[in-house]
């Protein structure tokens, strides 16, 4: 004898009779559901962004950094000594079978000028293989060649941010810009890549031939020095092999004895990023779990109000029992009230959650991904909360003694 529409109508009427109270009770669920949705959305967004960054960084990437050196008994900090050279970079793909390609980098900040516009950016001296290593392509023009590197020509590739700031709507191709007052010809424009894992704008960059950077822009006392070397392994499975091969090659090339520490560091970027992605996933789950605590609190609010309501309506329950309501008629009636509150609250919470994740992502510049799964989950969860927390009050109501209930003042 479960007449759902009739019972639902009855429940809605009871809820309307106490509008403010019902609304406040629902608010608990609304906040809980909205929090779950928003937290999952922000967390999922973060995970997605890291995944994007992993692929924007280029795949199967290792990075070789200059390490600490010991000179005259003094340990110098990592990266303070010039230990990596262009020659190192050139030997690696030849000697290490697990390595696909390398891109040495010597970079520095520089002021660039075009016409009356000027912009401060990172100028990266590198080799043509950079584009391949970073899985980067050009939107216009051509890349520089090995010949450009050999002859230290003054040509450059511009990142999108630099193009926007120097040229606006103008076509940069073939134009001459000045980097540290030296004229460079723009021979190509890089495709947009977005932010890096540490929030840097990857498009705010200029690529020039490595030798040009070494000789004309960032000249140091150590000719042939490079700042870092990017390495692309042949496959994900060969990342570790590549790391080992590079390490032994560089130790040999740098004449490092068996008891001495490396004067360089090889890092597995892909692995680092994957670890970051993993921890973001865990953070998402954690946020979701914390948010669902508030949903739980909302559920307790429902239970509380239902208990109050049942006390207030003891007489009504008595009347219903006197005219023939059975145990489950009473239970179903109050369960329905709890369920309707939690489902209305859940629906409003989903709307609020979707809305606030949109606002959040606008403000934080952080993508927020509301998945249909999390909506379904939130809806189902709020329904379950309603039934779970509504059951005890409904059960209690159904076990009242009819005559006591009727006499209740």
């Amino acid at each position, binding site marked *: *004898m479960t*007449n759902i529409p*009739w019972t639902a109508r009855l429940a809605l*009427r009871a809820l309307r*009779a106490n509008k403010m109270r019902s609304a406040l009770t629902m608010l608990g669920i609304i906040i809980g559901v909205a929090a779950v949705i928003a937290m999952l959305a922000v967390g999922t967004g973060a995970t997605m962004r890291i995944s994007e960054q992993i692929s924007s960084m280029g795949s199967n990437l290792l990075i070789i950094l200059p390490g600490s050196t010991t000179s005259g008994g003094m340990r110098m900090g990592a990266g303070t000594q010039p230990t990596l050279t262009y020659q190192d970079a050139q030997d690696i793909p030849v000697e290490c079978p697990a390595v696909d390609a390398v891109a040495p980098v010597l970079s520095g900040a520089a002021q660039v000028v075009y016409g009356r516009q000027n912009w401060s950016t990172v100028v990266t001296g590198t080799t043509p293989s950079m584009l391949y290593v970073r899985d980067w392509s050009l939107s216009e023009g051509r890349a520089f060649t090995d010949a450009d590197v050999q002859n230290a020509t003054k040509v450059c590739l511009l990142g999108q941010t630099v193009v926007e700031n120097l040229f606006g709507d103008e076509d940069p191709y073939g134009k001459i810009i000045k980097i540290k007052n030296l004229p460079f010809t723009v021979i190509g424009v890089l495709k947009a890549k977005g932010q890096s894992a540490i929030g840097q704008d990857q498009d705010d960059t200029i690529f020039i031939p490595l030798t040009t950077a070494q000789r004309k822009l960032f000249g140091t006392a150590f000719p042939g020095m490079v700042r870092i070397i990017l390495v692309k392994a042949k496959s994900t499975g060969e990342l570790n092999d590549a790391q080992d091969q590079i390490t032994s090659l560089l130790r040999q090339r740098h004449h490092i004895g068996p008891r001495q520490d490396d004067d360089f560091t090889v890092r597995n970027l892909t692995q680092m990023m994957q670890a970051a992605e993993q921890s973001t996933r865990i953070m998402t789950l954690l946020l979701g779990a914390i948010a669902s605590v508030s949903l739980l609190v909302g559920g307790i609010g429902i239970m509380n109000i239902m208990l109050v309501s049942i006390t207030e309506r003891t*007489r*009504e329950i*008595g*009347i*219903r*029992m*006197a*005219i*023939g*309501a*059975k*145990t489950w*008629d009473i239970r179903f009636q109050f369960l329905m009230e709890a369920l309707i509150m939690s489902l209305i609250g859940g629906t409003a919470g989903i709307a609020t959650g979707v809305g606030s994740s949109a606002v959040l992502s606008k403000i934080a510049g952080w993508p927020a991904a509301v998945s249909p799964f999390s909506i379904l989950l939130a809806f189902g969860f709020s329904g379950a909360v309603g039934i779970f927390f509504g059951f005890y009050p409904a059960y209690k109501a159904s076990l009242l003694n*009819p*005559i006591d209930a*009727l006499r209740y003042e």
Partner: protein
Amino acid sequence: MALIETQEITRTYQLGDVEVNALNGVSVLIEKGEFVSIMGPSGSGKSTFMNILGCLDKPSRGRYLLDGIDVSTMGRDQLAQIRNRKLGFVFQGFNLLARTSALENVELPMFYAGIGADERRQRALEALGMVGLQGREAHYPNQLSGGQQQRVAIARALVNEAPIILADEPTGNLDTRTSEEIMALFVRLNADSKITIILVTHEPDIAAFSRRAIRFMDGRLISDEEVS
């Protein structure tokens, strides 16, 4: 077989250390179609007796047979079903559901009987017509006079065609004229529809409408006589 038979029923309340016998060994036989009034001073156990007859309460000792069946053997839901099908209640305080129209109040017992919406509505309208409340179907209890509210309650008691109506001081809150109208309604239901009516009252004028009067005193039945 009598419609209602109580055998030595006793109802004991525990008040602290004291045991109060609200009813003390009451045996009564009531046949189908009777119109019985129950009288007695305040606290003599009339309501206690009615609640037991109405399957809202159970005797502490003794047996209560309704249609020959011992009610004490039944579970909650069976009792609910008996209240729904066999018994109609009319209370002194009306006991209508607030914020619920007259029509819906009358439909309620049929809902718990599992009757479909169309039939429910049809029969509720008929019952309201029978108690003279045509045109008031949509009114809420707080928009009706006491007499009208009691008529709604009577319509609700009638609507499932219960063979027994139990009325505990149904005119207690009404003025003399309205009381007489309500009593006339009971008399008609008893005469025309052969509904068994058991009614508690303090007033001899009201008891005079019945055909048999039972008196209680201190939980005991002290007299049981025909009304002349």
